[in-house]
């Protein structure tokens, strides 16, 4: 068996909803079935074969080649298997996924890992706004799993995030950790303004003080040695990420907030 490869044929004008193209939904289908499946594109539906050259047959190992930022909903609600994307991806990469792996060489658009429950997404590029966030109007963002971004993320990373981990090797944009309910966001680079805005609980872990500092809605709780950090760093070791090589630390300055709300969140900055 070789990976099921979907090579995008042309530059897209319209966005394409790729949610049917997951290992779960393709199980039991042969190439002809897949070729005939209809995808929503703009106000039309188009058969998969009109958009993609199809080769290979292992639906548990799906590859998107020549991928575009207009391919939305890749890996939608997948529970197992692997999706590899060569190129960029559109919005909602890995939305609702509960398991399996997604890896992408390029950048993603908004809502990467939106409300995901498990599994891992690795972005070897930049991610757009609302990584691991909840859809507009919804109350819970990602509730499990891991998102690794080697580049930068946009605004509102982890908005309404409830559990799980977002690891950013580059910089995070504004409102990182906004309205976060729980979980962990770690950023090796810098973070934008309004860090932890309206954060309820959860942890934002930083190896250095952000350029914009910590806002007044977080109170300094002093410097501490926290026992859980070595455990967390140990758990990073098996990841294919810069985080695996970060020298662990447990000595941090702890800031609690957002005190405009329940104020149970924390920003931990290495000292």
């Amino acid at each position, binding site marked *: 068996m070789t990976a099921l490869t979907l090579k995008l044929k042309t530059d897209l004008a319209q966005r394409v909803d790729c949610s049917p193209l997951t290992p779960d939904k393709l199980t039991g289908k042969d190439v002809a079935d897949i070729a005939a499946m209809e995808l929503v594109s703009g106000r039309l539906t188009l058969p998969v074969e009109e958009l993609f050259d199809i080769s290979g047959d292992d639906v548990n190992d799906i590859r998107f080649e020549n991928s575009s930022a207009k391919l939305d909903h890749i890996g939608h609600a997948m529970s197992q298997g692997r999706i590899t994307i060569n190129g960029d991806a559109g919005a909602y990469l890995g939305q609702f996924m509960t398991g399996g792996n997604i890896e992408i060489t390029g950048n993603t658009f908004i809502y990467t890992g939106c409300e995901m429950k498990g599994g891992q997404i690795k972005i070897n590029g930049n991610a757009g706004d609302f990584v691991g966030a909840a859809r507009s109007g919804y109350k819970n963002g990602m509730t499990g799993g891991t998102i690794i971004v080697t580049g930068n993320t946009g605004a509102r990373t982890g908005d309404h995030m409830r*559990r799980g981990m977002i690891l950013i090797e580059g910089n995070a944009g504004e409102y990182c950790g906004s309205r976060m309910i729980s979980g*962990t966001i770690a950023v090796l680079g810098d973070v934008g303004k309004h860090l932890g805005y309206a954060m309820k609980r959860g942890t934002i872990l930083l190896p250095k003080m952000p350029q914009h500092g910590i806002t007044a809605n977080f109170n300094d709780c002093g410097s501490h040695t926290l*026992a*859980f950090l*070595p*455990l*967390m760093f*140990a*758990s990073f070791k098996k990841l294919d990420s810069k985080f695996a090589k970060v020298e662990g630390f447990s000595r941090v300055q702890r800031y609690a907030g957002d005190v405009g709300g329940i104020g149970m969140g924390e920003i931990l900055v290495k000292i």
Partner: protein
Amino acid sequence: MIINGVSIDKTFAEAFPMKGTRIIITAQNLEWAMHSATAFTGFATSVIACGCEASIERTLDPSETPDGRPGVACLIFAMGGKGLAKQVETRAGQCVLTSPTSALFSGIEGEDGKEIALGKNLRFFGDGYQISKMIDGKRYWRIPVMDGEFLTQENTGVVSSVGGGNFLILAESQPQALAACEAAVKAMKQLPNIIMPFPGGVVRSGSKVGSKYKALNASTNDAFCPTLKGQTKSECSPEVESVMEIVIDGLSKEDIDKAMRVGIQAACDLGAENGIRRISAGNYGGKLGPFHFHLQEIMA
């Protein structure tokens, strides 16, 4: 069967199923981990009155512990999962949560994923300030305490275990019996997955089932009490003046097998010249439990 002049009885030790778990206590240094572990496993010699049987299994090097600090592994056994959970929780609450610099982890995966609460309910001590962290699929609680933060894993695994493995050492004098026990315990302590829950690993008050007093369901094992040689149907030959027992709880039958072999061998190594006469075992005619450790088979 005779080893080094010590005769091995053709009998068996009778053991019964228990539920057990391993917990790991770490601290800033081994001394403080040991303080906590000693308290945690205190008053836990026998399920008859302690509710559980527990002891320190071994000390752990920083490289072996989840948080990279010195630690101590303890095994704790009870007759059922519920009883175990209750013991673990009260002991963790009173002896680990309270102990400076400590952290508490599970040291074992549950059989079929079965788990009991470890720090799950201790979190309420945090009065709302407790913080939960999922790391590698396991939940931990961070509970603010006066010396910093108490870190505890939420749950620990439960495994079916074996309790009550034992053997008796019959010797010509009390010092000789004790010396043989010490040698046996020292050798057995090198092994994983077992504990000897009695003080120093040795028990001198082996019991039989039943009593002349209606209120009691166990009483002294008069057959092995040397001072009663003339008063009861005694197991002690004229030259035997002292009998001591080593009780072993383990995570599996095989673990106990191994431990008994090592322990009996150590006692036998002292041999007849050091007054060790005979090795026997406690059983209840096979009525108590499904696990039978035949001494001669073990030593074969």
